[in-house]
């Protein structure tokens, strides 16, 4: 019966990983069972933010399906190229060539091929790695570079986390953006935290995250990180939250301790327990917990 909390933002670099890592360290401190999920599978950073970590398990995930043409049977009719809805098949030098990076593995090409010259083969999606940290385990995904199918990898990570923690909290550090892996990080969670910075660019994309949260009926809260970089804008952000019934969880000042902590391979809560950012984050975590439990 775990409670899943996702930290997303839309625009990159706003501080998702800072918030998720803090939340994990905080939750483990108040004696809650917690596990982290690094759903940013194209650029996973969560364990770095948690300080010292050791890899305890790694497995290859073969969940991607890719179409492969058997040129012995292929008659170059070009039907596959015309039917593929993902732009993954082109005609080059008179014969069809599949671009694996774009292939969804849906099997439509194989179905229409008149000589059954296309097979759907399983290929590597990426790796699933479990780390041990001072604050609990983290399930991380590393997508094969240039791949699609990040959403499937995120689903797997969440499943694994649920099977490990069985009760307690799961904190999911989502990827930047609003695509498949982010959707997979938001579907069915108990609470979505949107982290923004006080810029119009950040709010442009944050409002799309809000739309996704609404589609999937997830309760939401918002944090303004590095708020002191543009104080005037914070009120507008507060209004944005109020209008949409999104909890305004708080603000965090820009604090060099955050980066220094990473550099010293320490979590923020260990490295700078009384810095201004730590204080704000602690208040936010308390507020968040009462919202999630209540």
């Amino acid at each position, binding site marked *: 019966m775990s409670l899943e909390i996702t930290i997303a933002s839309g625009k990159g670099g706003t501080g998702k990983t800072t918030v998720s890592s803090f939340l994990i360290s905080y939750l483990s401190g108040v004696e809650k069972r917690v596990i982290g999920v690094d759903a940013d599978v194209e650029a996973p950073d969560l364990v770095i933010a948690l300080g010292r970590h050791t890899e305890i398990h790694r497995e290859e995930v073969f969940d991607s399906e890719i179409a492969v043409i058997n040129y012995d049977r292929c008659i170059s009719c070009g039907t596959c190229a015309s039917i593929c809805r993902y732009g993954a098949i082109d005609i080059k030098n008179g014969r069809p060539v599949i671009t694996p990076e*774009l292939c969804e593995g849906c099997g*439509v090409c194989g179905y229409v091929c008149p000589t059954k010259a296309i097979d759907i083969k399983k290929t590597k999606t990426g790796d699933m790695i479990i780390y041990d940290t001072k604050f609990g385990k983290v399930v991380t995904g590393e997508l094969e570079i240039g791949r699609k199918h990040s959403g499937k990898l995120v689903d797997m990570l969440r499943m694994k986390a649920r099977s490990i923690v069985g009760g307690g909290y799961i904190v999911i550090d989502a990827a930047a953006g609003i695509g498949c892996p982010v959707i997979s990080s938001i579907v069915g969670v108990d609470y979505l935290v949107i982290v923004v910075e006080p810029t119009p660019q950040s709010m442009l994309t944050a409002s799309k995250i809000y739309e996704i949260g609404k589609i999937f009926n997830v309760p939401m809260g918002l944090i303004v990180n590095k708020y002191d970089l543009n104080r005037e804008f914070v009120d507008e952000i507060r209004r944005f939250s109020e209008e949409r019934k999104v909890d305004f969880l708080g603000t965090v000042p820009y604090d060099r301790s955050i*980066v220094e902590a990473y550099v010293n391979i320490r979590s923020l809560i260990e490295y700078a327990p009384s810095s201004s950012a730590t204080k704000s984050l602690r208040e936010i975590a308390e507020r968040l917990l009462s919202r999630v439990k209540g």
Partner: protein
Amino acid sequence: MLIISVGGGKGGTGKTFIATSIAHHLARSGKKVLYVDADVESPVSHTLLGIDGREIVEEAKGFLPSINADRCVGCGICVEKCPAHALVGIKGTVPTLLENVCEGCGLCMIVCPRNAIKDRGRIIGRIYSGRKGLIDLIQGEVLPGVKEHINVVLRTINYAEEKFGEYDYVVIDSAPGTGAGVWLAIRRADIVVAVTEPTPLGAHDLDRFLALSKKLGKRVVVVINKAGMGGARDDLIGEVADKHGVEIIGRIPYSKEVLDAYIHGNSVTDLYPDSSVSKELNNFVSKLLRQARK
């Protein structure tokens, strides 16, 4: 005509800031520039290019089935074959489509023995165009909740590619990460610019991005943005750059001027032409162009 792609792996390092700075520099020296914003999940380039009035030039469409109840006999083949499990229904009844689950592959339409399924289509994204002086913008944007976001990247780049020949330079702003969308953004580049920040997270993601660029056989240069930020560790970037045999050709300082220009949607080199930031940017772009022509 030279194609410059800008990426970096980690979100929020300043890809768009660097890419727009490159475009501004080129335009100032009288060159015609096509700026392609391929960060379809979070496109904000128009705000930094000072473009207010964008026009929608294309609506990217995805496949969405509609079942003709008069022709359907409830055989259940589409339900069975759908790779996403987006069609449900008891045999003998007309199946129901779960729109949120559909990935637009079109297999149902092909397998239906009664031709009862057709494509009613749905808009999955938009392509915008805009102009400011000598810079033309082509920008893709994916709608929230859509799973086939890579299709929108592909459509955006294909749309722009038809016009490449009309320009002296093409600057492609990619999404964060190292997945298929980024792969698409850098695959036609003559030179790739990797934007990073001097932190452990920046270094970690830069490593993956450089591996992707190497896989595509691209020439890459690195630029460190937010140099001198609190806790900065340039040496970590140096290590990654050495590992991949690439040069760091710019160190853009973290400064109030940049933030100010960013928030107000202006070019920092226009607003603060004598600042050290502007000098660094100009040096960086000059070096970039020299490298690109080698």
